[in-house]
């Protein structure tokens, strides 16, 4: 049988990859994708703990995380489209000024 800690290690690695993506990549779309990676790593932890403890609460929270991720993707992509109209760029460094 697979130990719980293996699931947690996989989840930690995926979460760290998402964090590295947010820090290292200079593309707004890839940064949003990295945030999705981090949300999914957390989902894996929730489901693994739900399986181990025999409680459904973890799976319920995963459903809510999915709903929040959908809302976040919709609003985030709308902001990206709005920014791209102004600057014709997806580099977050291009949006350094607060007002233009």
């Amino acid at each position, binding site marked *: *049988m*697979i*130990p*719980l*800690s293996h699931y*947690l*290690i*996989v989840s*930690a*690695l*995926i*979460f*760290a*990859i998402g*964090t*590295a993506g*947010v*820090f*290292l990549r*200079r*593309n707004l*779309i*890839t940064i*949003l*994708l990295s945030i999705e*990676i981090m949300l*999914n790593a957390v*989902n*894996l932890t929730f*489901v*693994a703990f*739900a*399986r*181990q*403890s*025999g409680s*459904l609460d973890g*799976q*319920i929270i*995963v*459903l*809510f995380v*999915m*709903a*929040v991720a*959908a*809302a*976040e*993707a*919709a*609003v985030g*992509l*709308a902001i*990206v*489209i*709005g920014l791209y*109209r102004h600057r014709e*760029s*997806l*580099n977050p460094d291009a949006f350094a000024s607060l007002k233009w």
Partner: protein
Amino acid sequence: MPETLIFYVLSGLAIGASALVIGQPNPMYSVMMLIASFGALAGMYIQLDAPFIAVAQIIIYAGAIMVLFLFVVMLLNAAQEDAAEWDRSHPLRQPAIARFGGLLALLLVVQLAWALLRAGGLGGPVAGQVDAGVVSSVRELGRVLFTDYVFAFEATSILILVAMVGAVVLARREEGPTSSSKEGSGP
């Protein structure tokens, strides 16, 4: 044991695809790799006796959210945009602040590994203590969702409504100064 083998194949696939999302320049391929990663995670959810979550993962994440991303990538024609950017900001030639960010991510790995090693009671098998039927029942999941968590469920519906209105407002094309003065701006 095939079960263990499947777990390691799926986890390797999930980690490798996630690494490829941030490891290559074209956002189009990043989205594809993320779909592969979500598929592997859905397989792991099935192994964890959470079939409903696995199906929702495929339908909502890989089906809906990633198609939204793909649509925006195509709309903004981001593939060419990022190719030039990638040459300028290759990970090996990045400014110090980005290297600092990579260091922070590495530190996060070390810290999580350290915490996992120190935490007790995590070494036991994940499926050993509870019967699979307890957590794999979709019926029970729906019952809990609409009784114990009904307030959070309704709040989520309001959140999605607000996000929908916000996305429409944000992505709306702004009128030029002449047309806005003609029509009168503001409510």
